């Protein structure tokens, strides 16, 4: 399986040093279904980009193409300036359906990415334990996925992606299975994560509020065949206190604007 090189060996490419991921003219057809058509989008390094769009518009497809799990029918994706030809150590994926191993404990599931990379057991379990604690699952290390709630399973998937320490995190509706309180807590944690770690987050969501709340930029996708219809960059929100964002006039404005542009497709 072809892979891009380790990020460490990487001289900053001349064309776009501050762009972690660039998507250029990507199309994807599933047989006769045209999921994406000529989609282009940039993902600045260290920022969180939300992909927002109606169900079935191709968000998961785009994310999997960036991950190197799917081949685009046309176009090109670059990560750190290098064309993507398959999965690589610079990207980690949080799956919409969790994709946990039902026969493995939480600990082994979280450590599984490291296990596949050949990290020694003691080391990978120490790392996994740290991330299990970080997502609030301490005490469940030896539980099996079927013993966890949907939200807890989702956190296991999140911890697994975090523990491989990839530069780019591809998150497919990571908070869809949790209740509103937990969701808000996760969103705050995510903001902390974005601020703390210099990682690039690509985040799929159905929630306009969530997208505006957590993102540096929101890309709005049109229904199939999907292209980017609009990119919105909330300006002043990042510097404000997390607790007050939801009352901020700019936040409310943007939510309104996105709703207005999406509404035409719902109707």
């Amino acid at each position: 399986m072809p892979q891009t090189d380790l990020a460490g060996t990487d001289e900053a490419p001349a064309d776009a040093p501050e762009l972690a991921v660039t998507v250029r003219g990507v199309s994807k057809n599933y047989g006769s279904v045209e999921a994406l058509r000529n989609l282009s989008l940039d993902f600045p390094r260290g920022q969180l980009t939300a992909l927002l769009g109606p169900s079935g518009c191709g968000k998961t497809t785009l994310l999997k193409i960036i991950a190197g799990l799917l081949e685009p029918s046309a176009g090109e994706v670059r990560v750190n300036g290098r064309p993507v030809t398959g999965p690589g150590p610079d990207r980690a994926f949080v799956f919409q359906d969790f994709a946990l191993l039902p026969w493995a404990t939480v600990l082994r599931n979280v450590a599984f990415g490291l296990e596949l990379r050949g990290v020694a057991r003691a080391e990978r379990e120490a790392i996994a334990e740290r991330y299990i604690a970080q997502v609030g699952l301490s005490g469940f290390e030896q539980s099996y996925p079927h013993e966890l709630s949907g939200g807890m399973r989702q956190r296991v998937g999140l911890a697994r992606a975090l523990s491989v320490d990839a530069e780019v995190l591809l998150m497919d509706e990571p908070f869809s299975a949790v209740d509103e309180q937990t969701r808000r807590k996760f969103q705050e944690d995510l903001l902390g994560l974005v601020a703390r770690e210099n990682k690039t987050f690509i985040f799929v969501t159905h929630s306009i509020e969530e997208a505006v709340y957590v993102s540096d930029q929101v890309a709005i996708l049109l229904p199939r065949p999907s292209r980017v219809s609009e990119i919105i960059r909330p300006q002043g929100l990042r510097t404000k206190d997390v607790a007050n964002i939801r009352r901020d006039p700019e936040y409310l404005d943007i939510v309104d604007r996105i709703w207005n542009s999406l509404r035409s497709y719902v109707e």
Partner: protein
Amino acid sequence: MTHRSLILKLLSAAIVFGAWEIAGRIPISFAFPTFIDSMAALFAMIADGSLFAAFGETLRPLAVGVAISAFFGIVLGLWIGLSGWFDWLFSPIFVVMQAAPLAALIPLLVMVYGIGLTSKVFVVCIMAMPVIVLNTAGAVRNTPASLKEMGRAFLGNRRDIILKIVIPAASPIIFSGLRLGVSAGFIGAILAELKITPTGVGDIITYSRSVADYPSMYAAIFSIIVLAVLFLNLLERLEHTLFRGNIRGYASD
């Protein structure tokens, strides 16, 4: 939990044996002995050692055949499940094998391989292998695509994905195929002894029927069933130790 299932097992055994005893006492046929008579014959055969000698004979083709079927059955099944080309080539053979009336093939086997161990092992394999192959192949083909995708996303190579994702995911169905295959192998071993040359347990059955010693005949049949059940339980134990997480709350506990 295990307590309740043990009690249930004992209870169902008691019902079966009770029915057997009653049926033997009516009697439904003069050739059908009571449970108690059969057990007496069983203990007599255990006491004089003839049962163990018979098992020694019967278990040889059975053990060899089951081992071959399990190993090659799983390997072939994995191959068939993983490669469309292999599937196209081999699947029909095993589907036909599973459906074919085996007894009709025995004379042919005897013609080619004689009346020795080889023919008997073949009979066991023909009985046991198809279901193991087909179950394994089906289970492998149905590995959740999202798990394989996850393996690829986290940089698993093909070998890792097969060993750490495909096989564990398929293991419950592989094991159920093994259980069915082993049961069929037991039938095959006895069938071989009845149809090819009477040896071992098959010999006891043939001989005691010819002298109308029906309790001994049923005792022999009973003993082979007990052995099969014990072996199947052992297999289940093995599955649970190998794949702990597979015990995802069965209805019985």
